[in-house]
């Protein structure tokens, strides 16, 4: 099915990054207007403008027009260039906000991407650097992107002052593989990273103890690592966080995270993360809720073959993302209950016919 070439029109500031990424990948112009028109501070926020600048750096030939009031933008995408880039992120959002859409674009670049992002590495709104490294990037391995894929956390930076730095390296592929992931398997191990910057290093040990007190009864293979950064590499603000991930026998990953809050003890933060992990595992599936969009995007970009994946119920973000995919790529998903016999099971089987997207940008050296 050939993708149409007209302009796509959206309204509102929601799902901003996903829509821009879809525009760049499909090559269609996109116009987003009525951005926060009723708000006290109308128009684009500083992190959104910074994200647009990052897209300009990553791509070559992209034309971005922003209206005078900032409530409307027009994006004419160019090609994804890649290469060596540095970007300073504002302190309103963490680097996860900026890196998550770049992860979708990077495998289709002209040259392998080497992106350094500076700012806040751990935040409660977006995926932290640990989650990106241990969960998000391994999802790319499912699609055949693994050799040379790296995320180096050079410095950590907690909100509000940041001071963190991460480096993302991504190889270039010609085409992503078709996914056929229907068996969630059973959980075989749980890993976790507890880190604390500019506070008592015992906090990470306390979090690990508290988390183990719940998780020990389930499986024996649980290792929670304490990541210590000192001095210059620990950023400018104090904070601590616990990241947990569970891996199943079929390499399905589920994750959860909890960041420090003022006035809350580390044990409570650990319990919050652990309970979130357990509820995520209860939902089941092969992909957890935070990564549904990434996996669905890669399935659409796969070769012209039926890709299948078993996941839980889609989140609000995922539902709107599926609608946008239909808008840009004219591909829709077939979603059926995973187990028709078992009425209690809420898992769904998502299947789609890939568009056969081939990376035409890459330099054939």
């Amino acid at each position: 099915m050939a993708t149409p070439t007209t302009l796509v029109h959206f309204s509102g500031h929601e799902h901003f990054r996903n829509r821009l990424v879809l525009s760049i990948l499909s090559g269609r112009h996109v116009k987003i207007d009525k951005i926060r028109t009723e708000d006290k501070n109308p128009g684009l926020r500083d992190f959104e403008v910074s994200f647009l600048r990052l897209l300009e750096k990553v791509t070559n030939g992209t034309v971005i027009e922003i209206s005078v009031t900032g409530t409307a933008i027009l994006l004419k995408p160019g090609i994804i260039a890649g290469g060596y880039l540095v970007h300073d992120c504002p302190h309103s959002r963490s680097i996860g906000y900026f890196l998550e859409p770049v992860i979708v674009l990077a495998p289709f670049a002209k040259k392998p991407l080497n992106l350094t992002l500076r700012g806040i590495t751990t935040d409660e709104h977006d995926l932290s650097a640990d989650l990106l490294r241990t969960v998000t990037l391994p999802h790319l391995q499912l699609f055949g992107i693994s050799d040379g894929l790296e995320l180096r956390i050079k410095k950590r930076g907690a909100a509000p002052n940041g001071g963190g730095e991460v480096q993302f390296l991504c190889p270039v592929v010609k085409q992503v593989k078709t996914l056929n992931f229907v068996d969630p398997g059973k959980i075989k191990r749980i890993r976790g990273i507890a880190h604390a910057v500019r506070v008592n290093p015992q906090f990470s040990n306390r979090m690990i103890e508290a988390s183990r007190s719940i998780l020990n009864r389930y499986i024996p293979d649980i290792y929670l690592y304490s990541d210590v950064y000192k001095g210059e590499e620990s950023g400018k603000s104090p904070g601590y966080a616990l990241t947990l991930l569970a891996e199943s026998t079929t390499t399905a990953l589920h994750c959860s995270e909890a960041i420090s809050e003022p006035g809350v003890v580390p044990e409570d933060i650990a319990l919050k993360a652990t309970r979130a992990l357990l509820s995520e595992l209860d939902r089941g599936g092969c992909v957890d809720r935070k990564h549904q969009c990434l996996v669905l995007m890669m399935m659409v970009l796969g070769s012209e073959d039926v890709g299948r994946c078993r996941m839980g119920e889609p989140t609000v973000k995922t539902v709107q993302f599926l609608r946008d995919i239909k808008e840009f790529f004219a591909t829709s998903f077939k979603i059926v209950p995973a187990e028709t016999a078992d009425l209690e099971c809420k898992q769904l089987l998502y299947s789609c016919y890939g568009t056969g997207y081939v990376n035409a940008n890459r330099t054939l050296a």
Partner: protein
Amino acid sequence: MSDDREELLKILEAQGQQFLQNFSIPHPLSKGKGKASAPSAEVVDTDNSDQEWGGVDHSSASEDSSSEGEDDGSDFEQEDDDFVAISSGTSTAAPVVVFAPGTQSKDKPQVDRAAMRAFMSSKISKSRSDPESLASNKRKAGDSDEEAERTNIQNDATLHKLVHTKLLSGSLNADLNMTGAERRKALEGRVMELAGSAKLGKGEHIVRTDEHRRASKRVREGLTDKKRERQQKDLEEAKNLGNYHPALKKLFEASSGGSSRKREAGMKMGVGKFKNGQLNLTREDIQKVIGSPSPGGKSRRGGRGGRR
């Protein structure tokens, strides 16, 4: 047998009472607890008689450590907080799950350094590899060394080394009936090999050739004549037996003198080596020309027999 049961019952009840004193729970509980303790004591007894390990819960009245997964759903929240308040809801014979904070193993399991480094590494391909596969890779490498899957050349090398590294046994072996002189030369040869100044198997040969060189002219000439004669005889024997082939000529003729191996063609520079269009000077060459300001100049001049 009933005495034991009474004993165990009493111990169990005493422990329960002591534990309950931590909480202010109303009295009617003792009735319910009595009911709970009786079935669990019975369970203990049957397990003992079965002589099967019935789980950590049912071992005798010592403090239970971690549990089986037999929790009721209603007790979940309390168990999170690491203690169990025995409410009237558990008056049925549900196994009591006790999470005492002190009994969980405090010592961390041996942190597998390789697994930790693999997990925390920035390379994604490394962070996903199983620790089992890492260990099995190491084991595989070790196994292949132990297995006899080697090429013939490797076997020859091993054989050569084994034959020559039976330390000093060439001289100490009584079966060979060596004379004193032979034994001495063998020992000296082995010592040279062990010291590394001789290659394996060549030690004794070097000792003997040194001795030949030190001998007088007549002895030397006699030895070389005899050697030549022997080689001719060997060559004739080989031809008679049919072992000879023109391709094997090198094996049967005398080895050329080592000193006349490679004569440098052309004229030499005063210092250094000229190779590939470059004059390569070592530090000693430069110091020879410049004359290093090192101490002990007088003693150097006094040294004798530098180069004969």
